[in-house]
Each structure stands twice: as C-alpha cells, then as structure tokens.
C-alpha cells in the first residue's frame, strides 16, 4: 500500500535509515553524535553518563533517603538490600549520598565548562583571527595563567572567593579560559588560511560572520574533545578540593567529602565506605575520557567514512 502523499512513514526500516542519513547530512552535530553512538567507547560513555545525568537531575526522587538523613541504628552497616552501598559513620545511606555527590560533580564539571569555554573560545578566536597586538596581549595573559599548573589556579581564586560548591565551579571555569583560548587560537590560525575563509571574505563577509558561521563549525571537534577532558579534570579538582575542605562544607554530600569522612574508618574494615565513592568517581572519569576518545574517532578524517 502506498503512503499518503506528504506523510513520512514512521515504521519502515528502510525509510528510517534514510531519515537518519538525511539528518546526518543536514546537521554536523547529529552526524558526530551518530558516529559517537556507534563507537564501542562512545556507547560505554553515553550509557554511564546517561545514568549519572539522570541521577544528578532527579537526585531527590531517585535517592532512597535524604543525603543528610540520619537513620536510627544504622551506623556503619555493610552493604545489604536495604542499603546497597552500606551506611556511613553517622548512619546515613551511602547510596543516597553518592547520588547527591554525583550531582555536585556534574554540576561543577558542566558549570566550569559553561563559564570557561565561551570566554576562552571567544578570546582565542579573536586573538587568532586578528593577530598582531591583540594576539600578543591575549597570549601573554594566557601563558601567564597557564604558568599556574593544575589545581594551583584554583587555590588562588578560592582564596579570594571563599569556599563552596558554586565558588569551585566559578574557579574551575576561570581555570578553563586559558586552556580553551589556546586551543581555539591554534585552530583559528590554521583555518583562517584556508580557501573557504578567503572565499567568504571575498564575498564581503565580516569577521564576526566568518568566525561564527564558517570557522567555528570546522573547529568544533577539537573543542568538544577538550570540553570532555576538561570536565574530567574539573570532576577530579572538585573531589580534591572538597576532600581538602575547600569545596562544599558538611553536611553536603560530595565525592571528596565522603572520601574524607571514610579515611579514618579504613582501619576498622569499612571497605564499602571507601570503595563506593571511588567506584562512582572512576566510572565518571573513565566515561568522560571514553567520550573524548569517541569524539576523536568520530571526527578524525583518517577514520571517518569507513
């Protein structure tokens, strides 16, 4: 039976495939997402991050208990059906605390990217496109910021802002600026010599149109990879800072705070107390690194079109 004219058939394998192909041709985003979803590592990453994202968004609904709910007679219980991850030293359900901890980790990770990436990329594109003194000034500043390796930038900014989860997110966002700026600048330096930029310029396109419409599309993959990797760094940094007492304060649940609380109980054999937050953290980090790998595989010209 022929389909009525003007209607897209929903359940016909062949045309669904055709539809996916059409979407892939229309949108580069969809194409990259499609390729990531077909990589083994991409699949693992998407499943783990998907579960964690649901946990983060609906922490209050999913967690069986409140993150600070002290239960009667449940001090340091080992894992059971009632408490799959066991309980902590003041009778709180660890599964619930870890679900809320994942929420903090992802909030800080995503928040730092949301702050640092747009600013960094804008600075990098501008410096790369205009060159000369704009570039010289921007690069000096970026190099100076990059002279504070790893978590040291965070310590400087936290001393000014004070401690707290939001402060950590802002701090790591500031730390992301030079990272993205340097990458975006390098991409721009490469791209602006290409013929298509020349063509756009010949047609009378201004710098903003060239950057936004033409160059940015072509420099997206490396920036997306960097975003996944920086998010992994931010998750580690948040855990480290709250472990050190510079992030969220008690009784908030974060991976770092749970680890810090668990440390004295190692000698008492409370293995679940230490292993469950470590497992959650490791899964999150491996998923983010796999995602970066999968985006690279999906967008690298050498393995594309295979």
């Amino acid at each position, binding site marked *: 039976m022929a389909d009525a004219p003007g209607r897209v058939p929903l359940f016909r394998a062949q045309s669904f495939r055709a539809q996916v192909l059409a979407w892939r041709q229309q949108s580069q985003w969809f194409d990259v997402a499609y390729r990531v979803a077909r990589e083994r590592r991409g699949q693992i990453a998407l499943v783990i991050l998907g579960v964690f994202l649901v946990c983060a968004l609906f922490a209050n609904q999913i967690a069986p208990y409140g993150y600070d709910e002290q239960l009667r007679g449940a001090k340091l219980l080992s894992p059971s059906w009632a408490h799959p991850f066991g309980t902590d030293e003041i009778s709180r359900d660890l599964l619930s605390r870890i679900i809320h901890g994942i929420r903090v980790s992802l909030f800080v990770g995503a928040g730092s990217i949301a702050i640092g990436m747009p600013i960094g990329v804008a600075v990098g594109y501008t410096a790369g496109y205009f060159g000369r003194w704009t570039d010289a000034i921007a690069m000096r500043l970026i190099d100076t910021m990059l*002279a504070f390796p790893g978590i040291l930038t965070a310590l400087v900014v936290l001393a000014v802002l004070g401690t707290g989860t939001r402060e950590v997110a802002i701090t790591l966002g500031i730390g992301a600026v030079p990272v993205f700026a340097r990458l975006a600048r390098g991409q721009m330096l490469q791209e602006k010599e290409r013929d298509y930029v020349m063509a756009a310029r010949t047609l009378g396109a201004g710098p903003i149109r060239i950057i936004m419409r033409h160059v940015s599309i072509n420099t997206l993959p490396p920036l997306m990879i960097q975003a996944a990797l920086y998010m992994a760094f931010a998750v580690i940094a948040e855990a480290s800072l709250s472990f050190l007492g510079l992030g969220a304060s008690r009784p908030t649940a974060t991976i770092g705070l749970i680890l810090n609380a668990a440390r004295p109980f190692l000698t008492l054999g409370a293995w679940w107390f230490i292993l469950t937050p470590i497992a959650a953290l490791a899964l999150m980090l491996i998923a983010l690194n796999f995602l970066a790998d999968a985006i690279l595989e999906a967008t690298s010209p050498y393995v594309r079109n295979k």
Partner: protein
Amino acid sequence: MGSFLIRRLVQGIVTVVLASILVFFVMRLIPGDPALLLVGTDASAEDVERVREQLGLNEPLVQQYFDWLAGAVRGDFGPSFTKGAEVGNLMRVALIPSAELAVAGYVFALAFGIPLGIVAGLKPGGPGDYAATGFTMFTLGIPNFVLGIILIWVLAVLLGWLPITGRVGIDEDPGEALKFLVMPMIAVGAGTAAVLARFVRASIMETLNQDYVRTARAKGLRERSVVMRHAMRNALIPVITVAALQIGFLISGAVIVEVVFARPGFGSLLIGGVVGRDYQLIQGMLVVLVTVFVVVNTLADVAYGLADPRIRVS
C-alpha cells in the same frame, strides 16, 4: 644557540614577573584587613594603625608591589598573617619534605613510565602494550589523592607492610624515611608515569616506521642495534618536553597527596593559607612554585634545543 638561549631566558623572566603581578593584585581582592588579622580583634585602633604602617599597607598598591618584589628577590616575603612567622622561613622549613616527595615521585614516574612505554611501543598488541593500556586506564579513573587512599588501605592497613602516614627525615634514618616515602611517591608519580608511557609508546611506534629505520634494517643491522642506536635516540627526544611539562602537574598534585599522607610541606602550608585567606603566604608560595615551573620548562626547552638542532632555528 646563544640567541635561542637569551630569547628563552627573557621569555621565562617575563612570565614569572607577569605571574607575580597577577598573583599580587588578585590576592588584594581578598576581603578583610590583614593588619587586623595580625594583631587580633581586641587590639586598639592605634595598634592596628601602627601595624598597617609597618606592613606598608597605607602605601599605594603599585608601591606595595615593588616593595614586595624587592623583598621577594632577596628571599624576604614578609610576615605571614596567620602563622606568626616570616613567609620565607615557613617555606624554607616546608621545602625539604616537599622537594623530597616531588623528586622521588618524578624519579618513580620516569623509571616506571618510560620503560613501560618502550616495551609497549616495540610490540604493539603484546603483553607490555596491554599492561601499559591497563595502567593508563587505571590512572585515568583514579586521581592521585584517591590512589593515595587506596595505597594506604592495601599496603598499610590490610598488608601492614608500610606505616600509614607521617614522615621521617632522610637525614635522621634513611631506611625508615624511605618506608614513609614509598606510598606518597607512587601516588604523586603514577599519573605522570602513565602520560609518559603513552607518549613514549606513540613516539617509538612512529619512529619505527621511519625510512631510516628501514634502511638500517635493510643494510642488515641486528634488531638490537636498529632499536637502540637508530630508533630509540630519536624517539626519546620529544619526550623531554612532555616530561618537563609534567613537573608542574606533579608539583600541584603533590600539594594534595601531602595532605592525604599527613606529610608536612608546601601542601598543608598552602592550604592553610587559602583557608585562612593569608594572602602574604599564598602569594609568596605561588610565586616560588611558578618560578620553579618556569625554570624547569626553560631548561627543558634548552635541553631540547641541544638534542635537536632544528628547534633552535624556528
């Protein structure tokens, strides 16, 4: 080579000076009066004013910066606002345990990461390659301070082989000092070792595909001399830069690992400074750390230039 050296040196100095300006002025954004912090809240207004005068806090900011810089160059970083001692002296005391840990961690990273990378790169898909990949995955998921906790749990609590936390000076009892150093050293160095292993592996694999390696094989050299004399030398040159860049991250990682193992040093001092918002302490320490980082990178660039003549020209 001379102009290359001078150019790199000037660049390094500019970065350090800019970093010191950045730290100095950002630290001034910290709310609160350091003079009040120093004398305590129950001091009279005159006392506070006297201390402000002594510290030069009434001078214009730019003047304060130059005064501080002039002192810093001579090793005088001013008094700490919270620790009741000179920042310079606090750092001198903290330096030995921290340097000990950083050096040990770095030696571990080089001694473990580079051979692992070589083995993996010479036989991709072999057991060494699997070991390297497994190790890399492990360090990606387990950050240094978490590795520290795991080491304490396994080696100290479960097996009882090593003391849990603390430090014994190398000058007091070398054997005992080493026992305390093993776990923090691995925790600090493992991440760097993984980065090095991965990089060395890629570098070796690339080099083994070069034409001159094929030529060496074609003229009938033994595999050992092809690898050792022709491939290895060229493969390890770019490792210098990566190895040097890692030092910064190693030092910043050591800050946290020190706290995990309750070792005295820069870590606890710096974190105490951040918690107490003691900007005099923080800015002194950060300028020292940045200087170390920049000096190491400059030396690495120079070494790279010496090892590979093509770099000097560009």
